[in-house]
C-alpha cells in the first residue's frame, strides 16, 4: 500500500469516475513550530458514481477509516459528506478525504456501504433518522437515538418545514422573544 | 502480593479523606452550625482552592457602562440587562462559571471570587442574584 500525494489521489479519482467527478479541493496548512503539513482533500461527485468511488478508496487503502457522515440542509438540496481518512498508522502521513455527494430534496436516496464497511451502520442509521435521507439496502433501519414514539416525518436537522420547530417547548417567559428571533 | 503490602501500609497511615465539615455527618446541621458559631465546635475547612479559581462572580457596578457585550457571549444567558439603569443583573444559579464575560468586558467590571459554597433553597435568593 504505497502512499500517494493528494494530487495523485485526485487524478486517480478523475480517471476512474470520468463525467460524474465534479471537482475537488485540496486544503493544506503548516502547523506549530516545525511547520509540518496538515492536508485534507474534498472531492465532489455525483450520486451515480458513489459506490464506485467508495470501492476506489478501499483499493487505495485496505480498511479505510470512515469517521462520520455529516449532512447539511442547503435549502433545495442536502449535502452528505463522507469523512474518510487514509494512511493512518504512519507518523504524520494521515490524509483526510471528504467524499461529498449532494442529493436533491425531492429524491433523498443514497446506497448503503455497510457491505464494504460494516462499521458504518450507526452513522447511516443516524443520517436516516435525523435528515430523512433514505439509505437504500441498510440492514437495520431502526431508529438510533430518537425514541420509538417520535413523530414520523419530522427530521430534527432539517431547516425546512419538516424541522422540529413546532415541537419546541419555549419557556413561558420567552414566547415573544422567540417569535422575534424567528422573523 | 503487591496490593496486600499497600493495604497494610495504608492501615497505619491517616486516611486520605478530608473531614470537611466534620469527621462524621452531624445529627442536625443547624445545631452543628450554632455550636460552631458559639465556638464550642471547630469546623474543619475544605481543601484550599488555587489562586485563579472561578467561583461566584463579582460585579463592579460603577465600572459597568451597560454595553451588553457580556449578554452576547454568556452561554447560559445568565445575565439580564436593566434598561433604565443601564446596568446588568447576573443570576448565579444559571451561571456556568466559564468567566467568558470577564474576558469580553471592555471595562473589566466582572471578575470571579473563590467562593464555591453556593447552595440555597431559592435560586432567586438575594445572595444568588448579583446586582451591585
Amino acid at each position: 500500500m504505497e502512499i500517494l500525494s493528494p494530487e495523485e489521489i485526485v487524478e486517480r479519482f478523475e480517471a476512474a469516475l470520468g463525467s460524474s467527478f465534479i471537482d475537488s479541493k485540496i486544503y493544506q496548512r503548516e502547523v506549530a513550530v516545525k511547520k509540518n503539513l496538515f492536508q485534507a482533500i474534498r472531492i465532489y461527485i455525483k450520486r451515480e458514481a458513489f459506490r464506485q468511488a467508495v470501492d476506489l478508496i478501499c483499493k487505495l487503502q485496505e480498511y479505510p477509516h470512515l469517521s462520520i457522515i455529516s449532512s447539511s440542509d442547503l435549502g433545495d438540496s442536502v449535502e452528505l459528506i463522507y469523512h474518510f481518512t487514509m494512511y493512518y498508522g504512519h507518523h504524520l502521513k494521515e490524509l483526510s478525504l471528504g467524499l461529498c455527494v449532494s442529493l436533491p430534496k425531492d429524491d433523498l436516496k443514497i446506497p448503503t456501504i455497510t457491505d464494504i464497511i460494516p462499521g458504518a451502520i450507526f452513522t447511516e442509521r443516524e443520517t436516516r433518522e435525523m435528515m430523512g435521507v433514505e439509505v437504500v439496502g441498510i440492514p437495520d433501519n431502526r431508529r438510533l437515538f430518537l425514541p420509538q414514539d417520535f413523530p414520523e416525518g419530522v427530521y430534527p436537522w432539517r431547516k425546512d418545514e419538516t424541522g422540529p420547530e413546532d415541537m419546541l417547548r419555549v419557556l413561558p417567559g420567552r414566547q415573544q422573544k422567540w417569535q422575534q428571533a424567528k422573523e | 502480593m503487591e496490593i496486600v503490602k499497600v493495604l497494610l501500609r495504608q492501615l497505619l497511615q491517616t486516611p486520605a479523606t478530608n473531614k470537611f465539615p466534620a469527621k462524621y455527618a452531624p445529627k442536625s446541621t443547624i445545631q452543628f452550625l450554632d455550636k460552631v458559631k458559639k465556638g464550642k465546635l471547630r469546623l474543619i475547612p475544605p481543601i484550599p482552592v488555587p489562586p485563579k479559581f472561578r467561583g461566584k462572580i463579582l460585579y463592579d457596578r460603577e465600572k459597568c457602562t451597560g454595553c451588553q457585550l457580556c449578554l452576547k457571549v454568556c452561554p447560559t444567558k445568565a445575565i439580564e440587562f436593566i434598561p433604565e439603569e443601564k446596568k446588568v443583573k447576573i443570576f448565579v444559579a444559571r451561571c456556568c462559571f466559564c468567566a467568558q464575560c470577564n474576558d469580553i468586558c471592555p471595562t473589566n467590571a466582572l471578575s470571579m471570587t473563590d467562593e464555591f459554597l453556593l447552595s440555597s433553597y431559592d435560586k432567586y435568593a438575594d445572595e444568588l442574584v448579583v446586582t451591585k
Partner: protein
Amino acid sequence: MDWSSNSYPLSIVTMIGGSIVLALLGAFFGLLYRGIDRKLAAHMQGRIGPPIIQPFRDIRKLLAKESIIPDGGVSWLFQACPFIGLVVSILLLIYIPVFGQRALLEGYGDLILILYLLIIPSLALVAGGFASGSPFATVGAQREMVIMMSYEFPLAVAIIALAWRIGHVTDINPFIFSTVAQYPIWNQVGPVGVIGSLALLFTLLVVTPGEVAKVPFDIAEAETEIAGGLLVEYSGRNLALFYLADTIKAFAMVSLIVALFFPYNLSPLIGIGVPAVVVDSLFFLLKVLLVMFISVILIRTAMARFKISQASYIYIMAMTLVGLVGLMLIHVDMVV
C-alpha cells in the same frame, strides 16, 4: 449413649435462658465485629469508613422500613426464609464453645451436626432467592447453590482429617468439642504434622469467605453483576433478619475455627486475681478478631470477585487437594 454422661445436668430453664443470652450476645458481637470489619477495611483502603456502631444503626433503620413482598414470588416462603436463616445461625452458636466456655449444649451436638447446621442458612438464602421471583435473584440463587456445593468438599475434608487425628490419641468421641479442647492438634503432632494441620487451617480460612459470602466469593450477591442477586427483592424487616443472620453466621464460623485450632485459655496463667470467665472471654474475642482479620477482612480487600466457574474450580479442585495433602502429612507424621 456414652458421651451424654459427662455433660452437666441441664434443666429446661438453663437451656432456654442460656440460649436467649447467647442469642443476644451473638447478635451484639456479630454486629460489633461487622462494624470493626468495615472500619478496618475502610482504613486499609485509605478511607475513614463508617463509625463502629453503623451496623446497629443499619438494623434499626431496616426494622423501621416497610417490608415489601413481591407478588410475583411465593410469598409465604419468601417471608419464612429470613426467620429460618436467623434461627439456625443462633443455633450454631449454641453448639460451638464460644467465649472460652464449654458450649451450652455441650454433650448434645458435635462437629458433624455443625457441618449440617452451616448449610441451612445458605439454603434459606437460596429458597428466599427463588421465592422472590426476580430474574436477578434466580441467577443469584443458582450461583449460591453452586458455591454451596463446591465449598462442602474442603470443609468436610478439613474437619474430618482433624477429628481423625485426635481420634488416634484418645478413645473418646473426637467429634465433640471438649475432646478437641483437651487434645489440641498442635501438641499431638510432630513437625511434619504441624505443616499438615497448617494446611487444614489454611483450607478452613479460605472456605470462610465462601461460607460467609464475602468477596472474592460473594458471586451470589454480586452487586455489580446482578444487582444484589439473592437479596434484590428483600427490604425492611426481612432484609434486617437476613443481615443479622449473616453477621451471626460469620461470628459463628470464625469461632468454629478458633474452637478447633486455638482452644487454649489464658485464665490458668493469669492466676486467681481476675475472674477466669472474663479473661477467657476477652482472650476468645481477641482470637476471633485476629482470625476474622486474616480470613475475612484482608481477603475481602485484597482480591477481586471471582466468576462462578473460577470459584467452584478453586474450591472443588484446589482446596480439596490442599486438605488431602494436609491429611496425608498428618498420617505420615503419625506413621514415622
